[in-house]
């Protein structure tokens, strides 16, 4: 197999990415030498910040497309989605690599990242999360490996992986489902700090459902991008199918959130003009209500341009949700403690670098690996 000649390696966009990667790595090194205090604006009331909210929580949610499409193709046997199963798995794999990279920089002792694997504490959600990251990243590497083996011409290895692929997918679906919900479960322990607009005993389920929505939007979004920039032809039916799925999942999520708003929180909290209230409204209107309203109209649901736009606002909406849970939901607690947080420019640059690494690796994979030939 040859590299894809339609994809040029050095475009202006790639060069910008490479610059961002170099800058990000430099700031990352600075963080390794001088520590978190010198690099970030984190403090004792906001121990988790931009990296955790965007790169880890957002990155993992973004990766949900991998298990959804793998599940649809391998378990439900919906052949229609076979052409996008490889890009979806690759996105998931890169999403997790990005999350692990961000975690590496975010934890106080990067080189002890492996500690949870030998120091067990099964009562801790964080331990459960750590185990899922380890196992699911390994599973994704396995699911991704056939692309590499095909390129290298390692027939035997490819066939060996092919034999256990279905098993890997079943494990992957299980691990991913639990990992998405466990990330929500992490926050169950802080009802005394979070606004009831987000805190709820059903938070794990909220995280899972919103991650599925994000995954669907992300897969559709990047398929559209590959179609435009990487000249990968796909049927319109894939987009409309994903849009239908998105409508169902997001509609269900809207009901969940409304139920939570009326039972745990109160609508008055959302409209009280506070930072929490405003962020909640922004997240809900942009990421949930607006997309549901648009997709509910059949004409729009079948319009590729509209679908593309909807995908973008859903992705932004779910990322906003993760940032809200991680940061803005604690606004009044932080104010009560007299502490605030907004990311430093160094945190921004590292996040940009991490995201650029993901996009760059995706592009290189599209050029050099059999990503679309299926």
């Amino acid at each position, binding site marked *: 197999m040859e590299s894809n000649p339609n994809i040029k390696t050095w475009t202006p966009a790639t060069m910008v990415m490479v610059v961002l990667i170099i800058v990000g790595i430099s700031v990352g090194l600075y963080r390794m030498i001088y520590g978190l205090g010198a690099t970030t604006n984190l403090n*004792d009331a906001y121990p988790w910040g931009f990296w955790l909210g965007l790169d880890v929580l957002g990155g993992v949610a973004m990766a949900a497309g991998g298990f959804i499409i793998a599940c649809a193709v391998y378990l439900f046997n919906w052949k229609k989605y076979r052409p996008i199963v490889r890009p979806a798995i690759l996105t998931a794999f890169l999403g997790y690599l990005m999350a692990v990279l961000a975690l590496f920089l975010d934890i106080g002792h990067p080189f002890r990242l492996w*500690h949870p694997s030998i120091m067990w504490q099964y009562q801790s959600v964080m331990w459960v999360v750590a185990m899922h990251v380890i196992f699911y990243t390994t599973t994704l590497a396995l699911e991704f490996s056939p692309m590499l083996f095909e390129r290298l011409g390692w027939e035997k290895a490819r066939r060996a992986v092919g034999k256990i692929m279905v098993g890997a997918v079943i494990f992957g679906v299980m691990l991913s489902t639990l990992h998405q919900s466990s990330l929500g479960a992490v926050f169950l322990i802080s009802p005394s700090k979070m606004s009831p607009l987000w805190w709820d005993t059903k938070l794990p389920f909220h995280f899972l459902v919103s991650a599925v929505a994000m995954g669907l939007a992300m897969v559709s979004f990047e398929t559209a991008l590959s179609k435009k920039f990487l000249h990968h032809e796909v049927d319109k039916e894939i987009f409309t199918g994903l849009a239908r799925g998105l409508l169902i999942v997001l509609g269900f999520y809207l009901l969940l959130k409304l139920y939570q708003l009326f039972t745990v929180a109160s609508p008055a909290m959302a409209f009280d003009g506070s930072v929490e209230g405003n962020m909640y409204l922004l997240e809900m209107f942009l990421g949930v209500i607006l997309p549901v309203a648009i997709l509910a109209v059949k004409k729009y649901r079948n319009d590729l341009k509209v679908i593309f736009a909807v995908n973008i606002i859903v992705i932004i909406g779910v990322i906003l949700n993760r940032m809200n849970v991680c940061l803005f939901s604690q606004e009044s607690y932080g104010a009560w*403690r007299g502490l605030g947080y907004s990311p430093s420019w160094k945190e921004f640059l590292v996040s940009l670098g991490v995201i650029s690494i993901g996009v760059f690796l995706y592009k290189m994979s599209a050029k050099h690996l059999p990503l679309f030939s299926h």
Partner: protein
Amino acid sequence: MAINRRDFLKFSAGTGLVLATDAKVSAAREKKELSPDAVGILYDATLCIGCMSCMVNCKKANAEPGGALYHKETAGQIPYEYEGEEQKYDAPTSLSDKTLCLIKAYRGKSEKEEGEGEFSFIKQHCLHCVDPACVSACPVQALKKQPGTGIVTYDKNRCFGCRYCQVACPFGIPMYEWEKSSPSVVKCQLCNHRIAQGGYSACCEACPTGASLFGKVTDLQEEAKRRLNLKAGDTYAYPVNHIEHGKTTEQVVPEYVDHVYGLEEAGGTQYMFLAGVDFDKLGFNPKITNQVYPDLTWEYVSHVPQLIGTLLVAGTVTRLVTQRMEKKNKDNESGE
């Protein structure tokens, strides 16, 4: 290759079934009871004169080897909040990676008597919960509740710095060494290193009035309830330093708020408070309830094994059903 697709399916379904049916895995979490040997502190804000001797002694005692502020690199130095000339004046305004124990003052307007305002000191440090959120949150067992004394200790060599303890602690106690490239969590460990050598908490040792009183938690709980039953205006021999040491001081009994903070809060703590002013005004997060915080996450974690099992079975069954359906479709097509 020995393993084929069918084996794999059997394996995943088998593991799944075992996990899904093994109800014992998710048995109810053991309720953590207060150990009879548990030690703690009773802080009576009405006795506190704000001399901050506790803070000074705390810093000194914990900068020694084994203490919560000890670092090999800075051995022999006391970690002051301010560098240079200002070092002489060491008055932190909040807990930090250099301050485990803090006295704060509250000044408010009284509703009853005009002109005369309410006033109280309050001492902040780790409350050593009976069932601590931080211990349940820590993924690597760096934070542990010591059997017997019930002291919540921290092992910096296990900690990898996820800071979930900071998120989990409802009292906002664990502090992080943000400025270090090899940082640790810092919190009061009730002078565990001194207790191991037969001593007791430095803050209580230094307290001249008995405001900070060390002892067995059960004794302290009794003492606290006894004080609430005293008549305001009477005199009472308040124990000083250590409840078992017998040293007392005669004081006029003040008007107490009828509540022992820490008896029920967050499921109970080994550091308890008495005060003459509402506790909400003394810097306690009013959103803290009597909830045993680790139960909140255990409700989820305890179901994980069952979820793993159920999802593996569901995935395998779905695959088998769709494969069979496809085969049937193909047979039908070739039959036509």
